[in-house]
């Protein structure tokens, strides 16, 4: 027997109460893990979007599009090294809940701009020669079990074919991945040929969604962006250009201040938990006052007895944190297609255990004071 065993046994003084406490705390940490994981994915999306890349879209909205004829004038602007374009192809596979985010692109241009993605030259060549070809992100391919040569039917929720159908079939010609092996919305998605989409779609012909522009000097991003917008100010498609970092951040802002909401929800959950477990701990200490008094009578110091009690609370929180964050880590890959993140960042795990420690101290403070002031004679006689 050792001190840890004493702590462990103390936790199971009332097993049912412990199980319920563990479950409620674990659910709080699960929520924390999921929400913070999502938060981290958004932060990563913003951070990963380089300042050396510009995002050129229609001044009115992304849905208006820009004519592909703007490509040549765009490439001629000083400071621009390469240009790609893409059209969002929202769709689902088999059932509406299985969303697939696809982009119609010029594959060669796309991979030249997106240097953080890797694809084999052979796959690129095949894509160029296969009108209905598709390059699949590694994460999506793994999830669906797709392989080169498979034909996959997608139902587009936006694009209608010239014959009125929304069913599109693509042949997988290759698989691309993130060079850092990260899972994000691209590696969870699909790339198709822009030329094929443009030819087959019933409307929007000749339009692209956004231009992705690489520039030579990131510090000149503002000047280049202004030059682009000036160049197209009086055209049929006035543009709004910003760094991709700003663009992503702006998009995220449009769906609300996610970080604030996440923090608010997590704070409310843990604040409630503080009262719940605080009350439970106080009740447990009250019920076991005679036991703690016996320990002191046997010669266990105030410090040791208080530490044992705090260790019980910490173990409860830490166990619940491991369970909650563990389940969150298991669930996040399943949600990766929605949030683009497959693992809980280390910072979130450390944050979780930091919260467990703070809650332990906050929860254990009053019971600890009670134990420090325990009158042995009264406690042993049950007064």
């Amino acid at each position, binding site marked *: 027997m050792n001190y840890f065993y004493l702590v462990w046994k103390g936790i199971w003084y009332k097993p049912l109460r412990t199980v319920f406490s563990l479950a409620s705390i674990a659910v709080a940490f699960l929520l924390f893990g999921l929400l913070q994981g999502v938060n981290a994915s958004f932060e990563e999306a913003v951070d990963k979007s380089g300042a050396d890349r510009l995002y050129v879209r229609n001044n009115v909205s992304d849905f208006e599009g820009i004519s592909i004829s703007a490509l040549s004038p765009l490439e001629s602007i000083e400071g621009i090294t390469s240009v790609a374009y893409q059209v969002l192809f929202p769709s689902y596979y088999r059932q509406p809940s299985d969303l697939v985010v696809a982009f119609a692109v010029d594959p060669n241009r796309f991979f030249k701009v997106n240097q953080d993605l890797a694809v084999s030259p052979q796959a690129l060549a095949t894509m160029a020669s296969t009108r209905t070809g598709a390059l699949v992100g590694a994460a999506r391919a793994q999830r669906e079990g797709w392989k080169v040569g498979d034909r996959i039917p997608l139902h587009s929720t936006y694009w209608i074919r010239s014959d009125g159908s929304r069913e599109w079939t693509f042949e997988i010609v290759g698989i691309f991945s993130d060079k850092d092996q990260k899972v994000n919305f691209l590696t969870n998605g699909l790339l198709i040929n822009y030329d094929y989409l443009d030819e087959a779609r019933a409307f929007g012909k000749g339009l692209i969604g956004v231009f992705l522009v690489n520039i030579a000097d990131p510090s000149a991003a503002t000047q280049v962006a202004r030059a682009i917008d000036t160049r197209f100010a009086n055209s049929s498609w006035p543009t709004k250009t910003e760094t991709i970092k700003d663009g992503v951040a702006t998009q995220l802002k449009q769906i609300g201040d996610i970080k604030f909401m996440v923090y608010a929800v997590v704070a409310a959950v843990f604040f409630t938990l503080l009262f719940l477990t605080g009350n439970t701990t106080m009740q447990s200490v009250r019920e076991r006052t005679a036991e703690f008094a016996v320990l002191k009578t046997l010669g266990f110091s105030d410090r040791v007895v208080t530490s044992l009690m705090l260790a019980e609370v910490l173990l409860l929180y830490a166990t619940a944190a491991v369970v909650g964050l563990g389940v969150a880590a298991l669930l996040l890959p399943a949600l990766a297609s929605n949030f683009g993140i497959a693992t809980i960042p280390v910072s979130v795990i450390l944050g979780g255990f930091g919260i467990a420690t703070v809650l332990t101290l906050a929860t254990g403070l009053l019971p600890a004071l009670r134990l420090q002031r325990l009158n042995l*004679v009264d406690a042993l006689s049950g007064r």
Partner: protein
Amino acid sequence: MVTLSNIVKRYRRGTQDVEVLHELNLEIPDGQMLALMGPSGSGKSTLLNLIGGLDRPTAGSITVGGERIDQFSSSQLTQWRARHVGFIFQFYNLMPTLTARQNIELPLLLTSLSKAQRSRHVEAAIELVGLSGLAEHKPTELSGGQQQRVAIARAIIADPTLLLCDEPTGDLDRNSAVEIMNLLQTLNREHGKTIIIVTHDPMAAQYATRQLHVDKGRLVESDARTVA
């Protein structure tokens, strides 16, 4: 040797100070088995708590083994109790989540003994109190007499010189009470423990080598001579 000199103990009850022990003097030689008897509220448990360092006198001095324990700080008293005193309570006060063996081992966590050494000590104590075969049982699985044996084993495991027993047979039937008193007598006679027993039970008191009555905070020898 336990020496109490001019011990006064007052409690505050509401707005009034109540003096429980009045200028009390007592000497208990090493190896004595002393029974403290008296009606409820006479102050006998208070006296036991003072000797055991669980409470402090309002006035007077308490010397145990040459140490003035009334002058000890709270933490010094805690350490002193761990080294020198074993407590036995009426309602056993065992840890319900631990087995008999683990309850007995508890005080040894405060020592520097290795796991193997602790295990040997526990086995010897289990043997001494006659609990072989019941060591892995939890307190709720044991009878009152068996629980009190566990409590006695826990009290002697760290080899204290002083055993303080507060109504050790108060919750037991006659046969169990006799067994427990025989055990305490063995610890006194064969192991040299100084034992102080607070009891209402005349049968239990008969096992003592000396009997004292506490009456309204004063000590009276069994021959009715007032000690102090």
